């Protein structure tokens, strides 16, 4: 198992390198000009200087190498400095945003908590709702509960977050006035009132995100339970005289959870992607909104770094899912 993990980790390096190259080339080949917004009265030689100041003077391979060094060598050092108070990275040039002229990673670190709070809560809520629904629908297959569950998850698949988000805003904050429609990130939770406020503003984005995740997970849980419920070992357990609760919740559930756990791990990065839209709807200033803003402002270093962070998340959680599957299911041997 350890062997497999190490092999996968080593394999992840070329994958990530290739993805960073694809992202770099996409931005490189694009016909846009970062100097397009500069007034025409600025003389060309000044423009050339500005271009060099942005780091655009050198040919593409050198810039790609510089970016790699900055991202993989200097930024980790900054992180280590930040944690242990050392000064490895002093004087090194970091990835600088064209918008704010400050290091990209600093802004990302500022924006991360909001995204993590909303996305993380939504994911946990969705798992807590989806698993019982999936288990019960499988146990009572074709009952009215199962039919209803199928329908609701179909609706959850089909209603895009930018519509369900707007719909809950219209219903709950415009018509009923229960929750604020805009997520206030400056809110400091230090008392009961502010905690209630935080809860109120989180309910709607979490609801919208959780609906989608629940739809997928509950279907998957149901299918996995159905696969296991007709197996011989279930009949054996029943024949031994075990109670129905123990049979379903211990014997069947533990076996059905194996693929579900990996799906949960695989779903995490795509949730970050989906959160881009939800953040836009509820005006949460997380990394999704940071990305949209950076794209609109033609801030290439920021876009490049953020897209790459998303890619790292995907590769990382793919790896985690593979390893988890091997650990949970002893029948799977990767060697």
């Amino acid at each position, binding site marked *: 198992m350890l062997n497999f993990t190490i092999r996968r980790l080593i394999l992840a390096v070329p994958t990530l390198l290739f993805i960073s190259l694809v992202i770099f080339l996409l931005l490189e080949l694009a016909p846009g000009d970062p100097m397009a917004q500069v007034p025409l009265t600025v003389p060309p030689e000044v423009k050339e200087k500005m271009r060099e100041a942005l780091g655009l003077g050198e040919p593409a391979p050198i810039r790609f190498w510089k970016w790699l060094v900055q991202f993989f060598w200097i930024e980790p050092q900054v992180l280590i400095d930040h944690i242990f108070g050392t000064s490895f990275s002093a004087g090194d040039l970091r990835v600088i945003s064209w918008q704010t002229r400050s290091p990209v990673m600093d802004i990302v670190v500022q924006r991360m908590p909001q995204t993590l709070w909303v996305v993380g809560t939504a994911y946990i809520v969705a798992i807590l709702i989806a698993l019982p629904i999936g288990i019960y629908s499988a146990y009572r297959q074709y009952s009215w509960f199962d039919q209803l569950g199928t329908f609701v998850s179909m609706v959850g698949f089909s209603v895009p977050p930018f519509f369900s988000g707007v719909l809950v805003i219209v219903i709950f904050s415009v018509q009923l006035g229960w929750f604020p429609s805009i997520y206030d990130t400056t809110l400091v939770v230090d008392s009961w009132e502010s905690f209630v406020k935080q809860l109120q503003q989180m309910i709607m984005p979490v609801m919208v995100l959780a609906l989608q995740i629940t739809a997928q997970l509950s279907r998957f849980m149901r299918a996995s339970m159905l696969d296991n419920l007709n197996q011989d070992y279930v009949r054996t357990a029943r024949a031994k005289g075990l109670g129905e609760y123990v049979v379903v919740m211990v014997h069947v559930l533990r076996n059905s959870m194996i693929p579900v756990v990996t799906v949960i791990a695989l779903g995490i990065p795509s949730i970050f992607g989906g959160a*881009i839209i939800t953040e836009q709807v509820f005006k949460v200033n997380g990394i999704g909104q940071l990305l949209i803003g950076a794209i609109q402002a033609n801030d290439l270093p920021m876009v490049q770094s953020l897209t790459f962070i998303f890619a790292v998340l995907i590769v990382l959680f793919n790896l985690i899912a593979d390893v988890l599957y091997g650990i949970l299911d002893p029948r799977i041997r990767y060697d």
Partner: protein
Amino acid sequence: MTDAAKDKAMQHSSVQDELSTPPRSQVRDIWDQFKSHRGALFGGCLFLIIVLGVVVGPFVYWNDAKFLPTGRDFIKLRDMRPIYHALWDSGAKVSWVYPLGTDNLGRDTLARLMFGGRVSLAVGMAAMVLALFLGSLIGVLAGYFKKLDGLLMRLTDLFLALPLLPMILVAAVLFREALSKAIGPEGGVFVLIVCLIGITSWMPTARIVRGDVLAIKEREFVLAARSIGTKPGSIITRHILPNVLSPIMVSATLGIATAIITESALSFLGFGFPPDFPTWGRLLNDAVDRMTLFPERVVWPGIMISLTVLSVNYLGDGLRDALDPRIRGR
């Protein structure tokens, strides 16, 4: 629309097939299974109604989507409410001429919905066809030719590891200007979005097709075909492709759904079509600013997107059951 005409022609020929074949044909079996799936039948009908309404609607409907009233008409015709609004608010500004009201520039909402539906569905279908073509091509090549298998599957894995939504957003912004200049503002965006969605959604199809091709390649009839000297090209087109048609059709329906959602998401985020060329996502985006006053302008495009995707999803579900011979017996 040529797509719709082609669809119609295909339906016609399949009906003829059904009439000329003996009672227990395969098509008949599939149709019977499909009929017994109530959700699928419902989804299929709903999708057909939406397509018909969007394609035929503008010819029947009396208002033009692009008509902009000017002068005194502008004041008179703008911000009209839907006709059902008169049920609870007798003073509302409604008219039977504008059943779903008008927007803040006086354009008819229903006409714009139909126009937007045409664009959304056209984008969805074109992107689906592109993704299907790429997916089947790569899947068949990887499954049939052992030498290409490793390379093409690594490529598929790499594409699956790309952060697709962010990259689509970035590419939509960066390439828009150049393409608009080359083909024209609307055509350029159309080509761009179709290509982006198509290029980023072929991977599941490729994987499924490869798996099926790997299994079918080892069957006796392929061996027989090869032993009489059939070339790989004609083995693929004559013997293998017809046998992997069912997974391709299922992923076609699901592909339309994801393509429509992705296009609407792009338009919603403001990276899609220009405002005077509405799609459902764009209409939704335009209406969000004033949704407290005019919630219906948000609700109608949203309902149309959701209903279309829901119907297509149910259709795909039913097709999967109908085309799977193991389930069909039951």
